[in-house]
């Protein structure tokens, strides 16, 4: 469940985060303002508040059930929604710092050959920015893996929820705690190593 949550939220937040980053550098002032406001607001709210709001606020009051009839499926989808909304802000910040590492000349050259803003961003700047932010993005991904535990707050049966029920019912608190802790080390360690290798491999050589 933890892995499923992580994977879905990672994809979602990558897309939404990229869109936000594009908004923050776009020529339309309103979009820039929206992007900045979104990032500043979301980054300063605890994830727990966001996830709880998704469940208690969105589902119960606004009737957003994400097309799910089952309560459990709904909780899962809302948790993904909350995680995406939260993580995207961090993806956006990482990408923006990545864009700053792309030399000015690249964007200037792109403009000089007549590319529009969308083309400059999509064909020239973003591909290079992505390659230079694989390291920071890996950190966001690892943080996301750990943040999925917050979904336990709305009853999604992921690792923290299971551990809570298990240590309340079984005697070997220490052992169960150690197993779950080890599980997370196993999850995050290869991600870190693989992304570290990838970022070295794909780094733009200048």
């Amino acid at each position, binding site marked *: 469940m933890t892995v499923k949550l992580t994977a879905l939220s990672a994809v979602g937040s990558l897309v939404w985060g990229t869109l936000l980053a594009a908004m923050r550098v776009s020529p339309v002032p309103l979009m820039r303002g929206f992007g900045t406001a979104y990032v500043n607001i979301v980054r300063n709210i605890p994830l727990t508040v966001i996830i709880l709001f998704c469940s208690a606020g969105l589902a119960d009051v606004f009737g957003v059930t994400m097309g799910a009839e089952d309560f459990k499926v709904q909780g899962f989808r809302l948790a993904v929604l909350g995680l995406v909304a939260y993580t995207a802000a961090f993806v956006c910040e990482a990408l923006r710092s990545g864009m700053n590492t792309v030399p000015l000349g690249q964007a200037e050259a792109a403009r000089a050959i007549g590319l529009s803003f969308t083309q400059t961003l999509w064909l020239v700047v973003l591909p290079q920015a992505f390659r230079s932010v694989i*390291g920071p993005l890996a950190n966001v991904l690892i943080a996301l893996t750990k943040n999925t*535990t917050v979904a336990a707050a709305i009853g999604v049966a992921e690792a923290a929820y299971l551990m809570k029920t298990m240590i309340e019912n079984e005697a070997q608190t220490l052992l169960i705690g150690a197993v779950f802790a080890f599980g997370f*080390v196993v999850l995050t360690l290869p991600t870190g190593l693989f992304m570290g290798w990838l970022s070295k491999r794909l780094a733009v050589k200048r």
Partner: protein
Amino acid sequence: MSSVLYDTPGPRAKRRNVIFTVLFAVLILLLLWWVWLKMDEKDLFASAQWKPFTESQAWTTYLLPGLADTLKAASLAMVIALPLGAVFGISRLSDHRWVRGASGTVVEFFRAIPVLLLMLFANEFYARSTDISSEDRPLYAVVTGLVLYNAAVLAEIVKAGVLALPKGQTEAAYAIGLRKGQTMSSILLPQSVTAMLPAIVSQLVVIVKDTALGGVMIGFTELLNSRGTLAANYANPIPSFIVVAIMFIVLNFILTSFASWLERRLRRSKRSTGAVLGAEKVDDLNAAEVGGSFGSGADH
């Protein structure tokens, strides 16, 4: 305004920008309108929903004690985690391999585990092995979880702060005959503490946000938990969410602004060595970059 990504808009681009602005504004307005409709449908604009917040009772019984508990847990965690983090950070820089290895393992381990798991575990552990009263237990558990995790992160901050100092500082200290301990305590630490301040303040934001975990999962009566009680009493889930979210935003925004003000000030000051650990570093450190130094490479 122009940027390197696009030309200064000419007449056509200006028109296009206006069109996009209008489209985007319409989109946002549609969204707001939908929110408004739904809220109106549920009578969320009725004064009964918002009235509690204009009276002192809701604040004095629920929100302010909640805020106080949030701040109490956060500051306790920070105060305990700082010296622990400093010890681990310094021992990670030790010349002895086994000291370095042991503290490195501990730090990486606790950074890789979600805070929530640590809190849950601490809660259960205290319940079984100690006789802390069940009223105090949540606070103990929350603080323990936060301390374990943040000591590990602070250790990394301390390590990075010391490493960020120019190498000449250590060499000069050795040259005038100081021993390793003296070099650390009278030359390196005093300078790196100022360099680390912005990063430490940013970490405080993370701690404040993480206290909310304890409120939901182990019944610690902090701000988010008090919101639940308040909402149950006045039957106003959405307004209470909005008020609490705003309180968190204001609190953290003050901290973030303070951190970036410190950072700017330190960068300007002539007396420092110019080594400053910014807030950006903190985002990286919280992710537990297990097994390597990627992410803080050439792109920072």
